[in-house]
């Protein structure tokens, strides 16, 4: 197809494989800014920092006593937060490799942590079905607020400047609008594993465990598009937008990376895509600025960086 008409094809050439983890890799996040680095958190209780282009392991952050389920990077790349089975959030100083804060309070394993835009507030969502909002400016270790509306485990959180969006296993996507003082809950009907909004926060990409990815209009909760074809029924997979939000990318439980056109929801070629991971792909993230780069992390213990052939 002509590049002018269709969206850019997905980066499907393996650039490097990051295989330092000794168990499943649960999360892989790009650093902020120019996003040259990758942070991965795995079942082996470590968070590892990688150079994305060279594939070298820069640092290992080991303080967790249980598996690491989530990593969030602050806007200035100076610190990051990680959480997991040990029911407390660790806030790390990247350069020194030590934890600057440990925030206990959750009753269950913490599935997700997320910073707000200036990293003054940290949100954490846990198996105990609460979202806790922590103040990183103040010295107090008590949460600012606890959002207890969810009836089941929180799987995903996204924060933008005015809204905190959570996705929970009870099948709801809840948007806490701070500006309006309103909680909008959209019933999806299936456990929600990932919520990724577009840049303009007009729409949400909701991944749920019915092998269905939905593009939801945030203003009225209507489904604009549905993306199917992949297999996602029991693991947390994460769909994300491709470059310039023209495509939707999702790694599924069979180790395949699927891509759809955002507008007409058609599967992009190749269909079916090749199997690139031997186990479930736990995290898919596209490079924030580079058109031809994305990462996937998988339960097979690797995290792979994909690029366009140059």
């Amino acid at each position: 197809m002509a590049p002018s008409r269709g969206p850019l094809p997905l980066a499907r050439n393996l650039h490097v494989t990051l295989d330092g983890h000794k168990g499943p890799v649960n999360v892989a996040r790009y650093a902020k800014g120019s996003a040259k680095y990758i942070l991965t958190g795995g079942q082996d209780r470590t968070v590892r920092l990688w150079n994305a282009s060279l594939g070298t392991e820069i640092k290992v952050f080991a303080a967790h006593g249980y598996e690491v389920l989530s990593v969030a990077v602050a806007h200035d790349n100076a610190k990051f937060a990680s959480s997991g089975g040990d029911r407390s959030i660790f806030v790390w100083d990247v350069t020194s490799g030590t934890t600057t804060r440990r925030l206990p309070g959750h009753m269950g394993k913490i599935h997700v942590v997320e910073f707000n835009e200036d990293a003054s507030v940290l949100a954490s969502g846990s198996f105990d079905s609460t979202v806790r909002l922590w103040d990183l400016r103040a010295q107090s270790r008590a949460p600012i607020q606890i959002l207890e509306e969810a009836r089941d485990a929180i799987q995903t959180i996204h924060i933008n400047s005015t809204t905190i969006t959570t996705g929970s296993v009870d099948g709801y996507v809840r948007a806490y609008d701070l500006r309006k003082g309103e909680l909008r809950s959209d019933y999806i009907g299936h456990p929600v594993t990932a919520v990724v909004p577009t840049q303009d926060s007009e729409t949400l990409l909701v991944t749920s465990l019915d092998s269905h990815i939905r593009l939801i209009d945030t203003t009225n909760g209507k489904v604009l598009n549905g993306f199917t074809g992949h297999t996602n029924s029991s693991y947390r997979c994460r769909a994300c937008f491709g470059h310039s939000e023209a495509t939707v990318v999702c790694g599924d439980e069979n180790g395949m990376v699927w891509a759809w056109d955002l507008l007409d929801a058609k599967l992009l070629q190749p269909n079916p895509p090749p199997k690139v991971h031997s186990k479930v792909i736990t995290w898919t993230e596209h490079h924030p600025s580079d058109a031809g780069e994305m990462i996937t992390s998988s339960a097979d213990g690797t995290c792979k960086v994909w690029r366009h052939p140059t």
Partner: protein
Amino acid sequence: MTSRLKRKLGDIGVDPSSARANENFCLIGTPLPPLEKSRDTGEFVPLWKQEVRDEKGRRRLHGAFTGGFSAGYFNTVGSKEGWTPQTFVSSRADRAKKKAARPEDFMDDEDLQDIRDSRKIVDTTDEMDLTTGKQAESQDDTDADPLTATLQSAMLPPSKDSIGARILKKMGWRVGQGIGPRISLKQRRLQDLRASSMTDSALSTNAPDTALEEDSDEANKHTYAPRDTPVLVVERKDNSHGLGYQPGMSLNDSLGTKGGGGPSTAPNISSGSGLGALNDADEDDLDVYDGGSVNTRSRLAYDATDDHDGERFALGNSNLRSASGHNLPSSGKYRDGTAVLSGFVLSGKPIMEDRWRVSWYPLPDIPPGWKPDPKRVWSQIQSQEQIPDSNKENFKGDPTTVLPHGKWKTSGFSTDERGSILGETPLPSAPRSVFDYMSQKDRDRLKNIAASLHSPSTAGISDKQPSPTLGPIPATPRIPRTDPRIAHAALSGFKPFATDPVKQARYTAYLQSQADSSSTVTLEPLPHQSISEFNSEMEEYAQSAIVFKPMSGAMAGRFTTAAVVEHGPKVIEGLHTPEFNDGPSQDNAASSDAENKAKDEKELSPKENAARMGMYGPLTRESVPWQPARLLCKRFGLKDPNPEPKTEDPTTQSSSTSFSQDPSSSASDSALASGTSPADYGIISTTDSGSTGTSTGGPRDLANVGLGDEDDTQGRDTLTYERPSVDVFKAIFASDDEDSSDEEGASGDKNPNAINPNTASVAAVPSSVSSAVLDNQLVGPSIFKPTFVRREARTTTTNADSDKKEQKEKKEKKKEKRKAIASFMDDETGESLNLVVEKPQKKRKKEKVKEKKETRVQSKGSTTMDDDDEMWVEKPAPPSVSASADVKMPTSIASEALRGRKRAVDYL
């Protein structure tokens, strides 16, 4: 003198330290302590002034750097050099004398005291034994050398005898013997037998005889100590059952009606209370929960009778004694205290009525098909009543005299039966059907009508009932009528006999027959049913049709029918037989259940349905108001979406808004209620227009709507307005003006800035005196003390001044601040003009630091010094010091920071 009085005096203006205030006019008695320098022990001392002292008056709780908790030579350490724990010294010569070091050797007296205290708490009884038994002995052999002492302690266990045991020992008792006079071999044998028979109840009474025959002569010559009483082994209670309950007990057993299971040896002593060897089992010690031995317990371990009766030596309760065949007078007593007749024995088991009835006397064989029919008995009784009086009296007398109360209870006589026996006129019983409420005439008429209407249709039924006009005859099946409309409704309504399918089927059949006059459904009594039973059943159906018919529309919306009517557990007479289940009806029930379930599911989740259908949107979305924490909004850099009016402090709002809002609402009220005096109206309307202009559109409007009640009354005030006196008028107008201005000022911003204009306006008023005083004293804003001002204020004693005074104070503070800044500025300008631009911030910082220092000094002063006035002396003169710090700066051309200049100096 309390500080309160002092303060009061200070307020009035009396100097408490002056000689005049302390002049003593007391001629008789003890004068009050002087105002000054007296210490009221009960006076409140602030926390930092409180001192902790131990029992010897030594000060405790020094600061961390002055010795910690308790330190110093005079506190706990033993010597000037400090406390040294015992050290281990090795020496060959003293080895034998050396004892192992105990923890106590390394403790100071407080620790030892603690240990002593804790030991007391742990076990007092043990302590008693130790002190009484062992100490006395150990004191004797204090002179013995340690070797023997250790040997002794190793070989001989420490005696822990109680005082009773020791007395007994002195009287010749030995361990292992029983207590009591020495006895012959025969008696002892007997005692052994008793003891064994207690454990083995199967022993016959012949056993003692055979045993006694074998006595040897030699053995008979001696007397023996009696056998020891067996130690009562109290089981440890480690379960959570109730006292006296053993697992596996049936209800009857637990009630104490245990058959003759285990003979109780002695009164069961309640576990937990220990008994000495000599101590008798007291009333308190007995196990109150031991129901079995209530009647038979003897309070003596050795029966009192054995002194008189040489042959029998009894240990145990009277039950056993009588069982052994001896005809002895029993010492048992009834519960009321009267002695039991000789030769009789009290039964240990209380009569249990259940057992008495059920198991002891088997029920007679009941002929098949027999139904209890009390009426037969009643008719007999009634026939007896007609027999002469003597007979009747007999009858009347019998049950009351013969039957005990328990029997009465269970004999099945109801009050009605008893009444009929006694010949009372029966009370009007509860009516059975609607027809009982009607007069006989109406009933007849109804039946006539019914018969004439339905005689052709209900042929099957009417054949069996002879003629309804004849009135109720119990022997004929009678089917009560139900209104067809009601029957129809009841058919569709609740099923009252859902638990009994047969009955339900009959009920529906009845309803159908009643609802549809042309129906051919007929009801006949069941094969095992008597006609009267059938009649009552039909009546029941008729009644339940009326009761359970569904409600009419308006009512039905308000209630929901229960799924199941609980009638309590259904008692089935006789043996359990599997019930016959009606196939189709059960199917019906099952199908209806399924329907209900489906319906429930449907109702449960419209949202789910929508999601399943893919109809995402308004159906799956719900929006609820949510209040983010204020701090969260702050962190996100957002405005609080709905700033709740509660958090805004109510004082400012009420002061600023109430004045303005009240007239507005009152005006609206008055506008509604026509006919007000135009002049007043005009006044109000002008203020009104201003206030409404400011308040419209804001969220405050809503809050004001809620205040409607109060406003109503205020509106009435304005309606019944009369011209007040001039000063009141003035006051109102003055305040109104101010408030309205406040309102305008605050209208744009809701923050309570209402104070600012006030202060600004008052700031214009010069207060030279106070400021002058303050300048002299060089009071910093943090240590500003209002005492001076107060005195000044007191000189102009007016009541209204209090407000002004506060304002003054505020203003003084402000002035003071400004002055300080200004003075710094002056200093700097004097030195170098270039610095002026940058300096103020720095200066402020320094100033702050200085102020902090001052406050620190002040607080320290307050801790150390008792007298408040000394603080003022203590205070340093801050501005000059700071100025000197500035002077240190070189007056070079460079307008750089300190470092750069210093570096330049270094180079030079």
